[in-house]
């Protein structure tokens, strides 16, 4: 039985009809991880399981990878920082708990920027992850290990987390599907806290249907996370089937400064949406350059508070183990929260956040979704980020507004740029309307098969 390239939905069908054994699936992916991880450095910890999980539930026997900032009971969890080098969580995050309860098994923990600080996976204390499309390039980040693992099919799907772009940007750079749900849609319980008012767990997958399946499992109210929402979840998978005709907003503010060959792909995608019967409407949005500032201020402030707990007493190593990026962010946060600067920076940023929220609410009165590129340029060479301390934020410029507003967004492959690298298209939706962005992404996938990007990514990594 050929497993290479099979989606979660495919594997569910094969396991369900007993055409393939769960053990075979597990061994298959472990073998691929052993073969390709030394090259890609996508996994930090691999779980070789002797005992199979109970084969019940909607994800029975499906292996998945999880970013190393999700606490996994009994499995080392480092957030890619030496501060947590030997940390063994005594409890399970809600996201991994829900996946395990659905019958899925943890294949391993994936590399990331240390503490999720970054957009390239190069700030990991365990070395950078390589982009499976070009080993001299970054996979993006911070969920770079998760994205690379899916792109090279070391796992059929992975869980990542996004504070601002950390799912969508690596998904775009490695040519896979990445879904950032609304803030509050998926519980943050057991996710190592970074920017607490932004943090959103979400799936990275080969297909839109798989993203819908995983969201269906992990979404919903969690009594352990006070910010998780009471708004009911939807049957995301079933809702893919309805052929919705939508009004798609595009904002010129999001098209400025983009690399030309990426812009062409986005324009081509817009023509495909029109061909499918959707209406394109121009909307005006606040320039995303302000979102960078809002994000930088609020996120650094939250980081300085969240990283204060690492004192090396209850767990982990002491603060001398922090690397440069964490130090920079913590100090900037301390600065903007300081007496005398609080109003000028932190409070001002919180007010502009209100402006961004209102800006999106106004736009969603006229349109159902907003479409833009996921990134202004495609995957950069390893080493480029280190030249500019602030560079990651610029790479996430098109992701930060949605993160600040807390709306959902999905990145899907929409072709290749002039260098043959994957290009990502993102669809942003209204609050808690994941069903609509998944629906449109699914229509796009059916029409284009993502221009063969997913298949080409996997084809480089034969069994």
């Amino acid at each position: 039985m050929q497993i290479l390239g099979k989606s979660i939905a495919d594997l569910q069908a094969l396991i369900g009809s007993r055409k393939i054994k769960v053990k075979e699936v597990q061994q298959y992916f472990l073998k691929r991880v052993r073969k390709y991880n030394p090259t890609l450095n996508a996994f930090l910890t691999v779980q070789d399981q002797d005992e199979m999980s109970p084969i019940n539930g909607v994800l029975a026997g499906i292996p998945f990878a999880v970013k190393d900032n999700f606490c996994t009971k009994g499995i080392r969890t480092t957030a890619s920082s030496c501060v947590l080098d030997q940390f063994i969580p005594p409890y399970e995050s809600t996201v991994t708990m829900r996946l395990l309860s659905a019958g899925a098994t943890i294949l391993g923990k994936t590399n990331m920027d240390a503490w999720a600080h970054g957009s390239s996976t190069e700030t990991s204390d365990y070395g950078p992850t390589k982009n499976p499309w070009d080993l001299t390039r970054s996979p993006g980040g911070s969920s770079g290990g998760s994205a690379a693992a899916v792109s090279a099919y070391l796992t059929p799907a992975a869980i990542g987390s996004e504070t601002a772009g950390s799912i969508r940007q690596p998904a775009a750079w490695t040519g896979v599907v990445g879904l950032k749900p609304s803030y509050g849609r998926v519980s943050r319980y057991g996710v190592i806290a970074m920017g607490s008012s932004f943090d959103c767990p979400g799936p990275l997958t080969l297909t839109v249907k798989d993203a819908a399946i995983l969201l269906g499992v992990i979404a919903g109210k969690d009594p352990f996370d006070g910010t998780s929402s009471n708004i009911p979840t939807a049957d995301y998978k079933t809702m893919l089937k309805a052929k919705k005709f939508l009004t798609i907003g595009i904002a010129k503010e999001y098209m400025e400064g983009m690399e030309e060959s990426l812009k062409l792909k986005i324009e081509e995608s817009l023509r495909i949406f029109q061909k499918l019967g959707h209406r394109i409407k121009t909307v005006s949005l606040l320039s995303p350059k302000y979102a960078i500032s809002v994000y930088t201020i609020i996120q650094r402030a939250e980081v300085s508070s969240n990283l204060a707990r690492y004192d090396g007493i209850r767990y982990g190593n002491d603060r001398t183990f922090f690397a440069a990026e964490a130090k920079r962010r913590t100090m900037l946060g301390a600065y903007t929260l300081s007496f005398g600067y609080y109003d000028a920076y932190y409070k001002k940023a919180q007010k502009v956040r209100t402006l961004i929220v209102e800006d999106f609410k106004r736009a969603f009165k006229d349109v159902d979704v907003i479409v833009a590129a996921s990134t202004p340029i495609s995957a950069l060479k390893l080493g480029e980020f280190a030249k500019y301390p602030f560079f990651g934020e610029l790479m996430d410029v098109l992701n930060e507004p949605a993160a600040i507003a807390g709306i959902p967004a999905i990145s899907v492959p929409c072709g290749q740029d002039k260098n043959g690298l994957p290009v990502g298209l993102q669809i942003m939706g209204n609050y808690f309307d994941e069903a609509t962005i998944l629906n449109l992404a699914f229509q796009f996938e059916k029409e284009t098969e993502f221009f063969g990007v997913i298949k080409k990514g996997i084809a480089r990594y034969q069994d």
Partner: protein
Amino acid sequence: MKLRYNLFMTNRSLLSRKDILHLAKLANLSLTNKEIEEYLDQLEDTLSYIDNLKELDTANLLPAARSSNEGNIFFKDGIENGRALTLNETLQNAKKTKDGLFQIPQILNDK
């Protein structure tokens, strides 16, 4: 590569070496001399960039601490909340423990 935003609108008077040392103290971080110089430059670059928020009029806006509109959530504290750890679980990652307690560095002088 083209980037639309000017990274280097530098304003070299925002921070002093003393500020960096103060911030490091607040954050309980120890820095080398090289780090102090580096962070001074880098934090100034960042502060210069985020200054663009001054271009926006926010006089009539309320600050948003978060994007969601959920109210306050309360629950009873205690073992029934399901999150409680056993003593062993609580201590399993600590480097130093004694009699079921965390051992912390001495903070008061003997004298």
